[in-house]
């Protein structure tokens, strides 16, 4: 069957269109706690200009953001704050773990530093580096855009699949008892 399409009209899927809109206007929430934050600022500044990828609108209110960029180490006392900010962000939302410290704890293998934020909040992209150069962060944003376009849906169904609820490998080790859990849980959900 052939359908006559007038000029200036394009046919597409709603999921594709929604993802296309979302990926090109990511509003980052800068959760910058350390030197990675400086590179994050450089990424937003004129030389690297993250506006070329539609992600220049840094907002300091989580209610207005859909991309959390965790740049820097997160300590025990900061993690409940991080979780609260993540929960305050409206759906759909994504998270970039920027740098070695946010991803794994980095060189800070001590009692107070969380060994990777992906143990406690969902993470979509990891950026290696200590700190990563702005190009690396921009690459992560481009990759995240591809991911959003590839699997995004209008209603956000991709977030509630079973696979997305599974803990990361490091966390599975944690639950197998390789790390003691003798103390009471600090903080918790906001």
């Amino acid at each position, binding site marked *: 069957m052939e359908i006559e399409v007038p000029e200036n009209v394009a046919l597409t899927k709603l999921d594709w269109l929604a993802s296309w809109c979302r990926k090109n206007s990511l509003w980052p929430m800068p959760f910058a706690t350390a030197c990675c934050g400086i590179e994050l600022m450089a990424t937003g500044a004129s030389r690297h200009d993250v506006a070329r990828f539609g992600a220049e609108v840094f907002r300091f209110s989580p209610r207005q953001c859909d991309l959390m960029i965790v740049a820097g180490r997160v300590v025990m006392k900061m993690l409940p704050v991080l979780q609260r900010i993540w929960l305050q962000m409206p759906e759909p*939302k994504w998270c970039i773990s920027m740098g070695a410290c946010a991803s794994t704890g980095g060189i800070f293998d001590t009692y107070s530093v969380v060994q990777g934020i992906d*143990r406690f909040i969902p993470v979509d992209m990891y950026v290696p580096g200590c700190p990563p150069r702005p190009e690396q962060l921009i690459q992560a944003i481009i990759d995240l855009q591809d991911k959003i376009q590839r699997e995004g849906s209008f209603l956000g169904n991709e977030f509630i699949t079973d696979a997305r609820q599974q803990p990361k490998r490091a966390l599975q080790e944690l639950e197998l008892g390789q790390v003691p859990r003798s103390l009471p849980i600090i903080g918790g959900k906001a």
Partner: protein
Amino acid sequence: MVDLSGVLEQLKSRFGERSWDYSEYHKNQRLVVAADLCFSVLEFLKKTCGFDMLIDVTCVDYLHYRGAKDRFGLVYIVLNTVTGQRLIVRAFLNEPELKIPSVVPLWEGANWLEREVFDMYGIEFTGHPDLRRILLPDEFVGFPLRKDYPLRGRGERHNFERITRGEG
């Protein structure tokens, strides 16, 4: 390095020879006093010798330290802003008597410094107006800068709720 002989003479005439140990090392002028004398020495230094500024209060854990006799060494660094004299006053404490009078009545600035020492080493400053943890969360158990505390902690860095994708 400003000469301290006048101050030392004054201290000697006031406190005698008891627990008297003065030394110099790399231009640091150090005075070791007994813990029970510590407050009165600092009070004397402030009110009579003019040491009007408290630079720092901190602590060292000498567990497993070569040749150390005492467990904890408190450090008070005081400055006379008129003459430029500096003095490091040390007092040693051992378990289970980890108590020393607070110097907040002398220098208001000691408040947070002593809270930090309490937070990290568990030394109780008697008479402190608000002796709570200052850096670590209130729920924290233990004193992490003690040498017998494991570097990687006791699992407290893993004790958080996990937020899954669907909950967010």
